[in-house]
């Protein structure tokens, strides 16, 4: 025993291993179970993110400029297509206003304070993306002070891109929907069909080889057609109803032929954006 403890290198190695696993286990647990990381880590991350902003803003400017440049190529055809939609849009907007007004009055009548479709938004700009294979996080420049909480869904311009996984005081991390992580990237979704029957399921996987999201536990695949849009269903309470996820691409059976999975082409172009929108659900009782 005397000899064992006199071996300095062995003791250092032992302490190193204990410290490594201790730190890892504690931080993974904190990330999974607590709403916020420890105060010291929050402050540290905030300081790093504030300084990071100095580098991020010019990068984002360049990124915007390059994407504008590529937009310029297909402006003509896009313009033509958009012009044909403008008339439709004005009509839809007028209709939306009337319907929203009606909805509000009816809610008052029923004394409903918030429903699954109600939400407010916070815009944030992206500071960086983690250089990591399995933690595909974006760091954004809004945090607790802007009312962001863990597990809030995040959208880019067109559709859902992920969920807030860590909140600091003035910055937070967003886990992208295209992550391999088995635990966190699940969204309750529904396929909005032409008839009234709701088809619900859980968007639970990401097929990295095709770039499609996979919706599992679908209650019926009978009426699903290619091109139908998929939205969040608001079931489970974490996500409000009606956030656009993508379009149905196809249906595949799993390897055992037991269940059907619906493959969804994500609506969000997960590449060219610099600003994201955090969705704050206004239904109480969720955190």
């Amino acid at each position: 025993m005397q000899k064992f403890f006199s071996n300095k290198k062995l003791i250092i190695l032992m302490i190193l291993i204990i410290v490594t696993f201790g730190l890892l286990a504690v931080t993974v647990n904190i990330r999974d179970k607590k709403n916020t990381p420890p105060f010291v880590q929050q402050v540290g991350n905030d300081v790093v993110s504030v300084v990071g902003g100095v580098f991020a803003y010019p990068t984002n400017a360049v990124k915007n400029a390059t994407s504008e440049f590529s937009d310029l190529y297909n402006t003509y055809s896009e313009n033509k297509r958009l012009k044909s939609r403008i008339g439709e849009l004005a009509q839809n907007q007028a209709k939306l206003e009337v319907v929203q007004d009606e909805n509000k009055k009816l809610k008052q009548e029923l004394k409903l304070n918030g429903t699954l479709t109600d939400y407010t938004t916070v815009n944030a700009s992206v500071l960086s993306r983690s250089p990591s294979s399995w933690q595909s996080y974006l760091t954004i420049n809004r945090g607790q002070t802007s009312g962001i909480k863990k597990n809030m869904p995040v959208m880019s311009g067109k559709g859902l891109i992920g969920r807030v996984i860590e909140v600091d005081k003035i910055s937070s991390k967003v886990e992208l929907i295209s992550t391999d992580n088995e635990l966190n990237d699940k969204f309750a979704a529904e396929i909005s069909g032409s008839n009234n029957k709701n088809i619900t399921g859980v968007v639970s996987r990401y097929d990295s080889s095709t770039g499609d999201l996979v919706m599992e536990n679908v209650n019926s695949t009978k009426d699903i057609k290619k091109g139908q849009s998929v939205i969040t269903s608001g079931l489970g309470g974490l996500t409000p109803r009606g956030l656009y996820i993508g379009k149905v691409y196809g249906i595949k059976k799993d390897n055992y032929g037991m269940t059907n999975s619906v493959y969804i082409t994500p609506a969000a172009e997960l590449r060219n954006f610099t600003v994201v929108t955090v969705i704050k659900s206004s239904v109480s009782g969720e955190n």
Partner: protein
Amino acid sequence: MNIKTRKIVGQVLFILFTFYLDGLMKWAFLNNMNHSVVIILPQIMLMAIIMLTMRIDDRRQLIIYGIVFGVMYDSYYYGIIGLYTILLPLVMVGIDHFKFLLVKNNMGYELSVYFLSLTFLQSGIYLLERLLQQTDTNVLNFITYTLGPTLLWNVVVFFILFIPLANLSEWLMKYRRDSK
């Protein structure tokens, strides 16, 4: 501020800059979110740290750099503390231990040291994450889709950035020769 403190501030700023460069590179150029078959991880901070490790002789200073920037990297990018925090100082001490064998200022040596450290670091991270069930990628997929492309990309970048980075880290260490 004496020259030594000034150079240390310079070294810290140098590492800090490359620290942010990692995240921004990933965000701006390697942001393969829609078709993420191949995952490339920019590791420019590791480049800077290895360049400095090859030139700094003070082991205590190296360990402090390793732990401080390791904790920052873990906390800011990974959200899990204990990956870079442990592996980065280990790499640095390892290089410091064996660098008497190497000829200084030789690109081939520095490249192979960088290559080995990157492999060690990424494999270590993979093993730890696998152990903690943060990923379910198997070993072959990890080597094909993550380790391989990462090594390739970083080695190419190393070739491009070698001369400026080596000159900069040489300059950031120069006070030793003056004082000796």
